[in-house]
């Protein structure tokens, strides 16, 4: 009796020990990502902070690293983001509203849904190949900011659709019933009642999609965004470069001066992205709070 009691205690100690060990492993695992993120931010800041200045933001690229700046890249990024949003947001929201509020539950709707999920997983460089063949060559838009934005719009479309669908799904059914009960048509119900309630959630998805778009590099290299652009685009058919490509160009040069420029460019890009992400997170938290109550 006493012996088995002791054995039980020993076993219990071993089991609790295993649990404790695992808790430590858990903390270590979580520490890997947090550590990597901190080191990355620290590394980039140490490399690039000294190079940040108004001249850096407001100069064109140059053969001399100390004269080079990101003016063309920054303007290219703004152009591309605005045009991408102009294409992707209406189509993405339209598709999401169709799938959630209009589509019949049949095989065709399921095909569209599965297809969107798969598109979200297609490597970005494949979108680049599509953009090269379709927009640059077949539609003859050349290597313009318009061709780049269209490519990027197709790339972020699944992200917008999936996020907007989730936002619409979170709207309580009672709102739809109430609108119908007051005699609203389907489109009145959707556009005057459901969409306004889902708006913060949709905005979150849109912001995250756009922040993905301004960080993407590979598809724009494919469609031939320039590496050396000493001008800002003045219309959608102009050639262009964007921040990530400028960073890639500098990072792939061996000279220390250009490495420093790359780090400074990264700092600018990260500040833009983190601002967008925090707006998205705040919006989402507010959205979740209103729907819990």
């Amino acid at each position: 009796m006493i012996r088995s009691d002791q054995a039980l205690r020993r076993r219990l100690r071993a089991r609790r020990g295993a649990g404790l060990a695992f808790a430590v492993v858990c903390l270590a695992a979580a520490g890997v990502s947090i550590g990597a993120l901190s080191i990355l931010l620290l590394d980039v800041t140490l490399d690039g902070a000294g190079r940040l200045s108004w001249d850096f933001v407001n100069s064109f690229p140059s053969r001399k690293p100390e004269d080079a700046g990101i003016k063309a890249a920054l303007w290219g990024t703004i152009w591309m983001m605005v045009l991408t949003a102009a294409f992707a947001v209406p189509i993405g929201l339209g598709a999401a509203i169709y799938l959630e509020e209009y589509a019949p539950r049949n095989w065709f709707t399921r095909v569209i849904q599965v297809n969107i999920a798969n598109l979200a997983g297609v490597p970005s460089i494949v979108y680049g190949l599509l953009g090269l063949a379709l927009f640059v060559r077949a539609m003859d838009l050349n290597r313009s900011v318009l061709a780049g934005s269209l490519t990027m719009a197709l790339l972020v479309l699944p992200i917008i659709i999936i996020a907007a669908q989730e936002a619409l799904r979170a709207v309580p059914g009672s709102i739809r019933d109430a609108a119908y009960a007051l005699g609203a048509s389907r489109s009145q119900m959707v556009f005057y009642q459901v969409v306004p309630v889902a708006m913060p959630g949709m905005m979150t998805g849109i912001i995250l999609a756009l922040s993905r778009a301004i960080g993407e590099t590979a598809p724009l290299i494919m469609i031939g965004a320039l590496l050396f652009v000493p001008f800002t685009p003045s219309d959608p058919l102009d050639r262009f470069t964007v921040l990530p490509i400028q960073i890639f160009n500098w990072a792939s040069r061996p000279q220390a001066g250009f490495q420093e420029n790359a780090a400074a460019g990264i700092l600018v890009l990260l500040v833009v992205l983190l601002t967008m992400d925090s707006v998205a997170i705040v919006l989402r938290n507010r959205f979740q709070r209103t729907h819990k109550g």
Partner: protein
Amino acid sequence: MDRVNSMSGASRIKPRGALGTKRRDWREPAVHGVLLLCALVSILTTFAIVATLLEETIAFFEEVSLAEFFGGTTWTPNFTPASYGVLPLLAGTMLIAGLAALFALPIGLITAVFLSEYAPAWLRSILKPLLEVLAGIPTVVLGFFALTFVSPEIVRPLFGTSQIFSALSASIVVGIMVIPLVSSLSEDALTAVPRALRDGAYALGATRFEVARRVVVPAALSGIVASFLLAVSRAVGETMIVALAAGGTPNLTYDPLEAVQTMTAYIVQVSLGDTAQGSIEFRTIFAVGMTLFLMTLVMNVISQYLLSKFREVYE
């Protein structure tokens, strides 16, 4: 009353009502149609991807045999005589994705278990946004990190090599990139496991670790495997990290300390140069792109299937 109303005020009330209905009559189908068109854009995109890849790939295989493409062990499209064996690129891709998966999948899963089973609410509310920030770091930035930190500060001193470019430094950073993906998708799967299963195990005297390892993780297994597949597919399709840090030489090797070239990095390399449309070199990027597309598609489809099975069980 009703009848009196409708008779006396018929001329005034009826047209208004009729006008209202009429407007809705053309509006409703129009709205429906426009929205349907938006949804069809995604189908068109898929068709366009497959069509453009197929067109150039077929043209490529008119000049190069399938056996040479998939059986050849040297990839030298710009040499004369050119050689089009995709194996070195495929091996480079698998080497980097495999190594990245080797450490990112366990870390991602353990992070997910931690978030769903262990972490108190306050820690979750710090960890999750940080993981999202990590997930949102552009890959070109991660590539810079691989090149300027991981390679010179970790890989080279640790293994005593002088190589700037190596498969290992690229794959470490690719792994860091996919950890947030694995942890967030796996966590979704873990939290979907019903509370009752956990309570049952606790009632039988299981410790928290035993509940997680023997009950929750097995119950969420298909969702976890789905997240693993998506992560590997993302690693296979990753471009900028490998373009910056893995080197640019097609290399059929298993040594992670050597420089390799992946399929994606090859495509980038070609498009950085000046390649004439219609040339065989231009077509190689579509043939390689097609291979990449099919590989990731297979993994994504299996992952979607597993997820739908998983949802059937628990939702």
